[in-house]
């Protein structure tokens, strides 16, 4: 049985939706990233409490019209990549008290 994964926004980043693009800046090296649409949905819903497969099913599949199996596989790889850059936290347990920044949609 596959373990559930939880994802949370890192507290060490700042983020803002500008136009149609999500800009994310990491305090580490003041590095700026622009998230693609899938990563943006993942990041916006990474609350540490909702399992990744639920985010995929309820948000990503709906937004991008992909099957859950394919989408989950891609989302796990994407989450790993975002975690490597310090943008997301990943755990097999719910993640709490991260002081994650709320996604801004101005």
């Amino acid at each position, binding site marked *: 049985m596959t373990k559930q994964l939880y994802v949370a926004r890192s507290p*060490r980043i*700042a983020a*803002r939706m*500008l136009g149609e693009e999500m800009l994310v800046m990491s305090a580490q090296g*003041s590095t*700026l990233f622009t998230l693609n649409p899938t990563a943006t949905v993942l990041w916006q819903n990474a609350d540490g409490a909702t399992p990744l497969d639920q985010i995929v099913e309820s948000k990503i599949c709906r937004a991008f019209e992909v099957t859950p199996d394919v989408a989950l596989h891609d989302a796990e790889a994407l989450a790993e990549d975002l975690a490597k850059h310090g943008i997301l936290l990943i755990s097999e347990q719910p993640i709490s008290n991260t002081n994650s920044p709320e996604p801004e949609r101005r």
Partner: protein
Amino acid sequence: MPSLAPQLELPSAVIAIGGIAVRVNTSDAVFLAMLEDRYAGFVSEQTHAEFEFDVDLYPPGIANPDADVSVTCDSGRWLIERGECRAEWQPALGRGRIRQTANPYSIDAVLRIVHTLALAEKGGFLLHSASAIRNRKAFLFAGVSGAGKTTMARLAPPDATLLTDEISYVRKLNGGYVAFGTPFTGELAKPGENTSAPVAALYLLAKGAENGIEPVAVAEAGRELLSNMLFFAEDSEMVHRAFQAACDFVQNVPVYRLTFVPDERVWELIG
């Protein structure tokens, strides 16, 4: 046991940039005269200063104006190191100490960093850009080295007031953005005028075969603004503030790509 001797007041110069005054205390008359000359248009008669630095000079060495800068913060105490210069600063106390040789580059670097950090608290920033006032509106011209900042400043018509050819000073005031003149110079080696005006536009410079202006999408504007902002500290809170300041700015001020032929006709598009 605390000393009962009265503290001697050192000779000092108050350097006010962007409405933020920094008092520099030094016992060295020659160094003080150098400061008063270098920052001539920005030396203030006011007695109050937000921040105050005591400067300890040590014998001349080889000052390297291109030395890397290190800015770190530990428990509210900032440490700024650049080449032979070492400065400590506690913003909450408004005081700091600089140890350096009697060269102009070190104090200049410290002032830029102090203003960068002070502005970040207020939603403002320093920007690698030329800026000028025309028709009571300020225009910023940003770009990396070689993009044309000095060229734009050099080509400015007589009715334009140059704020800087190198480092623009942007404050968020009363819900808008105001650009101030700075003494921080680039190739033109000419300090800006000590005046200010509301920011009307930011132009991202690009040299081309003909003059033209086109709007820049807000996300691209944000990326380019961030790449041109002066920023020194890897402190998480400061990074967050600088990022939000840049995003706020591009959501409230028009940003354009200014492609230009390097002659005076480009200013026909400005103002």
